[in-house]
Structure formats: structure tokens, C-alpha cells
């Protein structure tokens, strides 16, 4: 029996909003696909493009960066810098020919456990037909 492809998604979640939102989804026992490798960061603005490139280099099929809604950032403006910087990263990855669905951003607040599960469900749904990410992934000698 062949196994269906399950995309591996690395999610950079800001501690104050998105990570808390994902915790809320957990304690509320909301069901959502188990494809995510969560990495907590202090702020979406602290996510360096290097993290995203490294995630793809190591074999991530998809990368999500999620932070506080505009105006709600714990550090006031961090998410505003993220919005600009990570759009540039997205444009660069698309310029190289990486499928646009593979790198995405979301705003998820600490109260939005439901939204978090929604984001993940949609992400998994979009990534499954694309198959494993092989373009940026480093060699694997098995």
C-alpha cells in the first residue's frame, strides 16, 4: 500500500500571538493535520530570510511564518517589518521558480486557535498536490 505524500511544514510562530494561538488549538482539542514542525520565535519580525532558506535547504516542503495582526505586535512594529521583508523573500523565491504556495505568511492572534487550524488545513491541502520539495533541498545520500 503506497503512503500518501504528507508535506513537512516548518512554521515560525511568534511567541506572543501565533504560538499562543496554536497552543489554544491544542488545549481545545481542535483537530488539524499533524504536518507542522513549529518553531517559536519572539516576533515575526525577527525571522531572518536565512531561516526560511535553511528550512527549504534541509527539506521542508512548505514554510509558514505567522505573527500578530497589524497593530497588535508585542514589539509594536516587528510584524510590519516582517510584512515587507518576507514579501521580498517570497518574490525572490518565486523568481527562482519555487511554487508560490510553498512559502506563506499568516496573522494569527492568541485567541485564534480556530484560525490556526484553518491555516494549517489549507496549507496542507495546497501542498499535497505539489509533492515533495526537491528544488532547494540539499542532497540526501540515504
Amino acid at each position, binding site marked *: 500500500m503506497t503512503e500518501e505524500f504528507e508535506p513537512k511544514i516548518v512554521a515560525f510562530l511568534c511567541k506572543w500571538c501565533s504560538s499562543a494561538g496554536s497552543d489554544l488549538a491544542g488545549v481545545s482539542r481542535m483537530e488539524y493535520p499533524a504536518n507542522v514542525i513549529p518553531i517559536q520565535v519572539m516576533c515575526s519580525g525577527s525571522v531572518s*530570510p*536565512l531561516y526560511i*532558506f*535553511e528550512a527549504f*535547504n534541509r527539506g521542508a516542503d512548505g514554510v509558514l511564518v505567522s505573527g500578530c495582526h*497589524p497593530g497588535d505586535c508585542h514589539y509594536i*512594529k516587528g510584524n*510590519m*517589518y516582517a*510584512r*515587507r*521583508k518576507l*514579501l*521580498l*523573500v*517570497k*518574490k*525572490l*523565491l*518565486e*523568481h*527562482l*521558480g*519555487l*511554487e*508560490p504556495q510553498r512559502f*506563506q*505568511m*499568516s*496573522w494569527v492572534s492568541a485567541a485564534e486557535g480556530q484560525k490556526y487550524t484553518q*491555516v494549517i488545513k*489549507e496549507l496542507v491541502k495546497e501542498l499535497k498536490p505539489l509533492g515533495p520539495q526537491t*528544488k*532547494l*533541498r*540539499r*542532497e540526501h545520500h540515504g
Partner: protein
Amino acid sequence: MVKHEDLKAEAKKLLESGTIKYLIAYERNARDGKAIPVFIKKPEEVDKITWDPTCFHNLVRFVVDEKRRKARQKNPDTRPVGVVVKGCDSRALVILLQEKFIDRKDVRIIGVSCETTGVIDERKLAKKLKGQKAKNIEFGPDENFVVTTEEGTVNLPASEIMADRCLECIAPIPVISDVLFGEKTKRSTPHPFGSVDKIETLSFEDRWKFWSEQLEKCVRCYGCRSVCPMCYCDECVADTITFAVTPDTTADEKALKIKWLDKSPVISENIFYHMVRAIHLAGRCIDCGECERACPVNIPLRMLNKKLEKEAKLLFGYDVGFDPDKPALISCFRDEDPGDFIR
């Protein structure tokens, strides 16, 4: 037309008065008639200075070197260094000033206008001359270059051998200078991002095919990084061993240092290196074209590094390298920055 005598006179004045410690300019390499960088320390040496269509180097790179040199000296000479800049080069100086890498008083800027024509592309010239060697190339009238070979002298339309970046030039006149030579001619550039646009007509799969074929050729000589004035980091992400180490750094710390990418010139690591360079140049790359010129295997790096210059303009209304007082692209934002892509 920029007269050599005017340039030389200005250089002589600055050196004789001791205003600058030395001048970074172009000199003619007698052997092949093309310009190379020269460092003029004495007024008697100003006759070496040339200005012609082979002055394609970005001399601002050596302003970065001067800063490094000063940092190593115990009692450095704090006089400014003189530098000859074209329009594109001057924008590199603007970036260095924006980032406070240098102070305005550290440079004495001698601006040269490219007027109606830019500089040559060596590869295009070689193809045009079909094996003949050029001995001399000068700016000519009516948008021609006057090219002298062993066979004689010929006028070639500049547009046929001009560098691609000159065909997409948005700053033919230096945007910052202490003195400016040449006329402030306007130049029309219908497709300032033509090189980048070419990629955007391709499907994602075709784009990937293009870039993976090109970046497979990369031998990681780091010519692109070394020639770029904006790549001035002492510790580069691509070289993990330049990270600061002291006698107190423990063996564990050294062993567990982050290694973002491997040294091997394989496609995944080559793409990582070039992606990192491109993103670190967002809002900083002024398309002097040096990276592409230096590349020994002809990777079209301008098509990559210039992409984010285009996006800066389209998405954020940001003009790269014109105003030294403007904040860097990624250290500012507008309320109206696009956010539709965010779920």
C-alpha cells in the same frame, strides 16, 4: 564630452593641496587598451588618468577597502579619499552613506557623467570584433564608440556594444558629487527592468530550469561578492569560519557554530548562496553590473540581484540609492505596504 585634461587638473589640485590622501581613478592598460583601477598618490602621476567607455569598474569598492585599511592602522590618515564615480557608482556611495558605513567627509566625489552612452561590455565587443583585438576605445559623437584595432579605426553604434545595465540605466549622471564633469544629459530608458522582466514571462518550472542550469555552473569563486561594494561584511554568512573567534572561544562553541551552507559547489548550496546574497542586496543593489562582469562562467547575476530593486519600486515605492538620508529598504515600512498575500 568629458575632457581628460579637466579630470587631471581636478585630481592635481586635490593632491597638491593635500585635500585627499589618494585618488581612486581609472588608468589605461597599455597592453589591451582597456581601463583598470589606479591609485594616484602624487600630483605627478595624474597623467595616468583616463575616462573612456572601458571604465566599467565600480571604484566605490575601493572606498570600502580604504575603510578596512584605516581600521587596521594605529594612527590612520583621516583625510578623505578621492574617487571617480559614474552615475551607477555614485548610487553605491549613497547606499554606503545611508548605512553609515562611511561618513560624507571620508570621500571626495569626482562625478563623471556617462552622457548619452554608457560603458562597453567586453564580451559584446569581442563578439563584434570577431577575434580582432581592440587597442583603443573612445567616446565618439552621435552615440558611437570609436574603436581602434590593428586593422584601423571604426565607429561602432554604442547600443550594440554597451553593457546591458547601461541599456537599463536610470542614473546616467552621478546623484551625489563634489564636482561633476560632463553634461547632464537626459537619457530615456523605456525598460529599466528589462533583464528581470524576461524571467517573469516564464512559467515557474521554466524559471527553475533556467536558474538551476545557470547556478549549476557556479564555482563559488565569490568573485561576485568580492567585487560588490555592498558586500562589505567582515563575517559573511557563506563563510562560517569568519565568525568572530577569540582565544576564549571554547571548542564546543566552535564545533557547534551555525553552518548555513556547505562549501561544496553543488546546486542546492550554490542557490542558497545566491539567494542569500540577493536578499541581502534588497534595497541596496544599484545594478552596477560588476557581479555579472566578474563571473568567470557567465552567470546572468543581474537578472537575480536586480529583481528586488524592481520589487522595491513596485511594491514599496522605494527608489534605491538616490537619497543618503533615506532609511534602508527593510528598516522602514508604510502602512499601505501590500498585505494581501498574508492569510
